[in-house]
């Protein structure tokens, strides 16, 4: 049986993990390679790296980090942040990424999804979508969730699937950072709309939130950042609990 995936997400700026400093059991560790190894041996099913650097120098450091991670960690790696062109896909794939996640770059140029899927295969292209309710409708936001694009979220994920995206990560701005649970009503609509794997993001605060997520919606994976970085949830504990609840996980 296909297992539900648990995915820690690491934001990297200037070669360091942002918010990594309080990682449980490790004093002052914000080295992405150390964290990646720790997550991999701790039961993570996949890792997501977002490059949140703006500088040229930072981007170079990000490449070095990725290569080092890919040399040591043998689980799937998804990379996003600043992916606007096919050259950007190429750049991170050469450093060992398995999947490339595209967000604002696809909003600016929707053809990018199809072009990348044709060149690198559907399995490689992940649409990352930041979704927020506006007047009771789900809308796509750009620029890290600051700008309303006016695009209908459900239409957008359908378009991405049709264009060749192999997976979609949906981040709910309404629940993100609040740690009050995943945005189950929104995720239900997305899962209904597409026939590709859906990764839920935004709102994870406790093990119960993941149990609710997998029991209530047919998503493929749950993503979290600070809950894992700060040690509020240990991935092995989380997976044991999910298994007890009858959710298929890789232990």
């Amino acid at each position, binding site marked *: 049986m296909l297992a539900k*995936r648990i995915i820690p997400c690491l934001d990297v700026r200037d070669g360091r993990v942002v918010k990594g400093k309080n990682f449980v059991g490790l004093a002052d560790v914000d080295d992405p390679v150390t964290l990646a190894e720790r997550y991999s041996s701790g039961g993570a*099913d996949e890792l997501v790296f977002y490059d949140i650097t703006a500088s040229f120098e930072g981007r170079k450091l990000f490449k070095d980090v990725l290569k080092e991670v890919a040399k040591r960690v*043998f*689980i799937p790696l998804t990379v996003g942040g600043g992916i606007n062109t096919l050259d950007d896909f190429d750049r991170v794939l050469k450093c060992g990424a*398995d999947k490339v996640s595209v967000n604002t770059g696809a909003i600016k140029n929707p053809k990018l999804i199809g072009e990348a899927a044709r060149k690198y295969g559907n*399995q490689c292209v992940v649409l990352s979508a930041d979704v927020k309710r506006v007047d009771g409708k789900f809308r796509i936001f750009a620029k890290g969730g600051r700008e309303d694009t006016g695009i209908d979220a459900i239409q957008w994920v359908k378009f991405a699937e049709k264009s060749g995206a*192999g997976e979609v990560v949906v981040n709910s701005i309404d629940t993100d950072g609040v740690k009050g649970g995943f945005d189950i009503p929104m995720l239900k609509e997305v899962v209904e709309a597409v026939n590709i794997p859906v990764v839920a993001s935004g709102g994870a605060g406790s093990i119960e939130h993941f149990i609710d997520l997998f029991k209530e919606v047919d998503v493929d994976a749950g993503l979290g950042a600070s809950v894992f970085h700060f040690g509020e949830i240990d991935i092995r504990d989380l997976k044991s609990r999910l298994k007890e609840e009858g959710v298929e996980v890789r232990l």
Partner: protein
Amino acid sequence: MIAIIDYGVGNLFSLESSVKKLGFECRVTSERGDIARADRIILPGVGAFGDAAKKLRALGLDNTIKREALEGKPLLGICLGMQLLFDRSFEYGEHEGLGLISGEVRPLFESVSGLKIPHMGWNSLHILKKNPLFSLVDEGEYVYFVHSYHAVGCGESLSASCFYGVDVTAAVQRENVFGVQFHPEKSGETGLKILKAFGTV
């Protein structure tokens, strides 16, 4: 030395890293001489079957691989590399494979209904037959799959499956020719154990 065949299909960074981490000498190559000198061959691959088969032929590597395999050199096909070992594939048309293992490659959607395609993620192995690749692995261990096509009609060579709506071919073996649909280089410790076993068959 393990030759990892580079024919312009997919990303070999992780595969090379995992083989090196295990302490095996390896070379990523498209040179026939390297393949002849190697004591083992890995045929990787991501993408479309027709395009991959064409690239392999254009480099003249199809015959080299076939010859080496028929002479008894251990060969491991991974993902699309496994699919290429079969007689033919029906991925966008009909394409001829290497014919080292009998069977054919068909779209998953023909067999699986109501499930997401690609079959992507960690699935548990159901070992059907003794296969040296699984000498260090137990029944039920999880490995990482990403594919939209699968091998059918493998007959006696089928050695492991996983369940995704139907029994999906996960591994095949015919004498010294091995194939795995999943990615051992992305399957954590279990994957490394499988690669380690291949390095010592």
